[in-house]
């Protein structure tokens, strides 16, 4: 009896609450309309050229589409062809994973180690060394200098040097020999990979709270390695996360350097990557559905490895 009488007033009490909640949302939206307006130019372009294209690409990967005929739905066919019938995609995938596993982590550690060493220098020397290490990543297409270095005739610097010192009798076709192409592209990729994350690490190291290091000394930190693991790394974990995202994304996206050094396509697809495969189908063969399937695989590869790495990095210094 008592519950019945109590239930109804409660119901009545809830209903106006709900209405006012809707009204509150409206009020809230109205109050922040200036914020939406400020954000709108950026967000419209961002959605138009980044968010919607990702969705489009995902959808298109289930169609056959050649830019001329109307798209035809083919289900999972693009994906099954990609993974079961496309040997070249397998080479591309293998090469891309090689970049991700080798140049990704090496460049990440290089960014950190050099930032760590450079951070100890005097301000003038620090600025100079930062410039030296950062310059390759912003100097545009200067990596074609490496073409001269690795040139296949005896005018190439490497050949010239090795022949002069007697290691070689005949010049080696560095960029036409399957054995050497991939390592060379990796070296050049490493050369210009000390970019944004490198700067972020130096800046992160400079802003570490000095009192933390002193407190650590009181608490019995004995050497540099302990200081690095227990104080430095945890203090700059946010920068480490940011740097990881930059390096991973870059190492999965290798394409321009491969094309500039090894040609497109490279000899026997020795330097073919997922991105160059995507370019092949997207800009030459116009199989847009298939290319979208490649793009979708690349998308999930990049996001997946980024998320995985972040999970690992959260454990640093624990």
């Amino acid at each position, binding site marked *: 009896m008592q519950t019945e009488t109590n239930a109804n007033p409660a119901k009545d009490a809830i209903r106006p609450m709900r209405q006012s909640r809707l009204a509150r949302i409206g009020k809230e939206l109205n109050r922040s309309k*200036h914020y939406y307006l400020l954000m709108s130019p950026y967000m419209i372009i961002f959605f138009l050229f980044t968010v919607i294209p990702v969705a*489009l690409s995902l959808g298109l990967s289930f169609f056959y589409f050649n830019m001329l005929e109307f798209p035809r739905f083919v289900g999972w066919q693009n994906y099954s062809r990609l993974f079961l019938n496309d040997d070249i995609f397998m080479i591309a995938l293998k090469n891309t994973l090689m970049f991700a596993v080798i140049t990704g982590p090496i460049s990440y550690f290089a960014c950190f180690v050099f930032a760590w060493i450079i951070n100890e220098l005097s301000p003038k020397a620090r600025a100079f060394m930062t410039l030296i*290490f950062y310059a390759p990543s*912003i*100097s545009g297409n200067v990596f074609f200098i490496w073409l001269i270095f690795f040139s296949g005739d005896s005018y190439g610097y490497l050949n010239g040097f090795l022949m002069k010192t007697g290691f070689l009798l005949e010049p080696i076709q560095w960029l036409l020999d399957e054995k050497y192409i991939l390592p060379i592209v990796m070296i050049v990729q490493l050369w210009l990979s000390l970019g944004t994350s490198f700067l972020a690490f130096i800046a992160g190291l400079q802003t570490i709270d000095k009192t933390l290091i002193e407190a650590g000394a009181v608490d019995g930190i004995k050497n540099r390695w302990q200081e690095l693991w227990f104080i430095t790394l945890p203090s700059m974990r946010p*920068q480490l996360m940011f740097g990881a995202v930059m390096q991973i994304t870059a190492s999965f996206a290798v394409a321009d350097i491969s094309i500039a050094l090894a040609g497109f396509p490279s000899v026997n697809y020795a330097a073919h990557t997922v991105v160059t495969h995507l370019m092949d189908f997207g800009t030459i063969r116009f199989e847009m559905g298939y290319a*979208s399937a490649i793009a979708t695989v690349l998308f999930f590869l990049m996001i997946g490895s*980024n998320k995985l790495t972040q999970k690992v990095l959260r454990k640093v210094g624990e």
Partner: protein
Amino acid sequence: MVFKMMAAFRTPRKLNRSFAVSLMLFALLALFGAFMALPLIYAVNNAFKPLDELFIFPPRFLVVNPTLENFYDLFALMGNSWVPLSRYIANTLLITIVGTAGHILLASAAAYPLAKYRFYGSSALFSIVVLSLMFSPHVTAIPNYMVMSWLGWINTHASIIIPSLAFPLGLFLMKQFMEQIPDALLEAAKIDGASEYRIYWSIVMPNVKPAWLTLMILQFPMLWGSDGGSFIYSENLKTLHYALGQITLGGIARAGVGAAVALILMIVPITLFVISQSSVMQTMATSGMKD
């Protein structure tokens, strides 16, 4: 008690490494510094080499008789080309300046509310931006082309400029940097009756100058090095980078001019970085990602 005091006396001292380790680290830095710098030094030297030095055997690294011949050749060549060089320079300047300035303006306008206020959708929008840092623009290249052609922007400069205005990295760095502007400053402005737009323009923007320069140093080389890609095919709309690339395709006969071209292309972004370095470092200090 005594031990604690002794420890307190010792703490200001930095942990020292042994001389051997210091030497090793210095050697490491010098070695890799050389690896990083040599190709660039080589590019500078090559641009000033006369033709006979470019093809000397065994190849020589440094220039012996520096000359400006390559640069004269470059200008002579460009003066004779079908589309004058000034046209390519104008195109590149248009793309680079509008793209960079617009990016700084749009990204900071979007970053200000995201950094300083919580409202419906703010955290969701920011997570989408962070997520988009995790994949490269290659993923969206094909649908982008369709969006462009749907908008009718193929073969216009807009196809290069507009998408570059909304690169996610700029918004991310700008937002992280703006978070350190004290709230009290914004509150004071609000009490004085300033609108949100006024606050953004007169208070937030002047306070994030280091971040402007950072966005510039990230955006500028990308647009400066843009060759128009698959979006631009009219010769009179093409960029300097494309024109210079065509020269280097001339092969051995154009090797000297090609070296001059390489120097011009790389010197501009590097100079910008030298000028803006300290501001960039200030911004990068706030670049961290919190999970």
